[in-house]
């Protein structure tokens, strides 16, 4: 039995200074609701992408990718933003070549961003003298 390879550390998608900046723009009073909405929007896009393999709803996938470009860009999650752009380009170009892989990749990155956001929310909530951010 070969030893398991050491897990490769992934560069975080979420840029925390940018997240804090966006929360500053939104305002502390609305921050928690905003983060909940971001979670919901990312989750909705992810659901659409995950369903794509079965339903092949190109328009819904386009809308999800469009939404992800803006959401990821807002948080400087450049890897997801770029992947979503590539997916948009591929969808517009038509043809199936590589689309499934790209949809899967964008979906995985979206799931990672959701997870990072949740982790951050949890740590912010548990931090002493939490400000909600």
């Amino acid at each position, binding site marked *: 039995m070969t030893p398991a390879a050491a897990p490769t550390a992934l560069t975080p998608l979420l840029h925390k200074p940018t997240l804090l900046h966006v929360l500053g723009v939104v305002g502390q009073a609305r921050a928690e609701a*905003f983060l909940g909405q971001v979670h919901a929007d990312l989750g909705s896009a992810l659901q659409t992408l995950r369903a794509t393999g079965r339903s092949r709803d190109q328009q819904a996938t386009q809308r999800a990718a469009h939404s992800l470009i803006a*959401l990821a860009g807002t948080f400087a999650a450049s890897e997801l933003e770029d992947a979503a752009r590539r997916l*948009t*380009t591929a969808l*517009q170009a038509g043809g199936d070549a590589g689309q499934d892989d790209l949809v899967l990749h964008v979906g995985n990155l979206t799931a990672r961003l959701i997870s990072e956001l949740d982790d951050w929310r949890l740590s912010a909530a548990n931090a002493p003298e939490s400000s909600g951010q």
Partner: protein
Amino acid sequence: MSTTPAARSARATTILLIEDTASLQIIYRAILERAGHTVHLADNAADGLRLFRDIEFDLVLLDLILPDRDGLDLMQEMLGVRHDSRIIVITANGSINKAVEAMRAGATEFLVKPFDEIRFLDAVRNAVKPGPARAPRLRAAHLQDRAVPGLPMQTTEATSGTFIGSSDAMIRIKSKIASVATSMATVFITGESGTGKELCALAVHAGSNRANGPFIALNCGAIPQDLLESEVFGHVKGSFTGAIADKPGAAAAADGGTLFLDEICEMAPALQTKLLRFLQTSTVQPVGATKPRKVNVRIVCATNRDPLDAVRRGLFREDLYYRLFVVPIHMPPLRERSDDVLEIATAALVHFAAEEGRAFGALDLDVAELFRRLPWPGNVRQLLNVIRNIVVLNDGTFVTMRMLPDDLVPPAGKWAGPTTVAAAQTDDLTVGQLVGKTLAEIEREVVEATLASCGGSVPKAARILDLAPSTLYRKIEGWAKT
């Protein structure tokens, strides 16, 4: 977030925001309300249209991709209801072609997501501003029967005096031009070849109270030095061999208007002395004339060199430099305002297509992506030449990759997008070149280069620089004031 100057100066307006992604709605609304605007929200086309019919909005912000209807369709219906509506189209990169269509169909402006709050509020402010400066719609109309604004002299008419470009850099330049145009201050324009220095000079003239006077442009580098004095100050008949008639010279011809001296650093030292005297006394004495003549001229000059470096190297008089370098305006190279590339390219495409009887209306997405990433060493002039070449040699609705000139796209493996371009630009920069600059100057150069490599995206640049975007915004705002 502290309120930005852009936010403070924006006039309060009533805005309809049609955006289906709820979290983006929250951000846009927060930015707009903080700037004092009243915002009504709709998350689909049907609700947006209903609100639009019920309320007369100052501005509509419209996402092009909506769940129930195509945004462009909706915009056309809105313009059918109120033809003078101001509509800013907001779109992610995937729908740039549609955004271009939207501009042609009457949208006031388009913003590509994600955008930062400064650009957002600038676009809102420009869209609701009264007068011709606000109106890409006027620009679009202008395109149909006149030259392309925002382009260097060989393709635009001298009366245009406006730029294409909604990048932060161009917004700052337009703002600076607007603030200095009405003064008599000498404007010194710097920038690489092809960046539109002459157009900038024209804009200064057009915005001044001498706009009805002459605008005389003289390229000091294109005229033989022994003729330059006569060209600038004129001559009287018989003053030298070949002087077969009186000639007033550019300075006298510009009386009551603006004299634009391009490539000023190429002027011979002897003539620099005469120019300095002219600036000090406002009088011209043509070659061979016995009496000087008083003239009322505003000087605008330009160079593609570093003028201070020319002074240090003894090529340009220091006293003349200080006399001329009153209001400096730097025209950024196209690679530092990649967001403007598509606007300029599309405007030129439409214009040249009309001239050549072609059907072109937009760039294919791949071409648009490539254009945004190319370094454009020849700047706007190179971009225009490429567009002209494409239009002359091809036809179609969209410009596709196969229509591009062979020498535009580097061979595979030689070029890999903006990161490589940025790296290539900084390859030339050695530590030795930085010596002599202040830390603040070095910081600014690095930040601006990083911003350029990120296509102007503050969040992306902030991530690379490991700074908070708000820190970067503060720095940019601070530089804009200098």
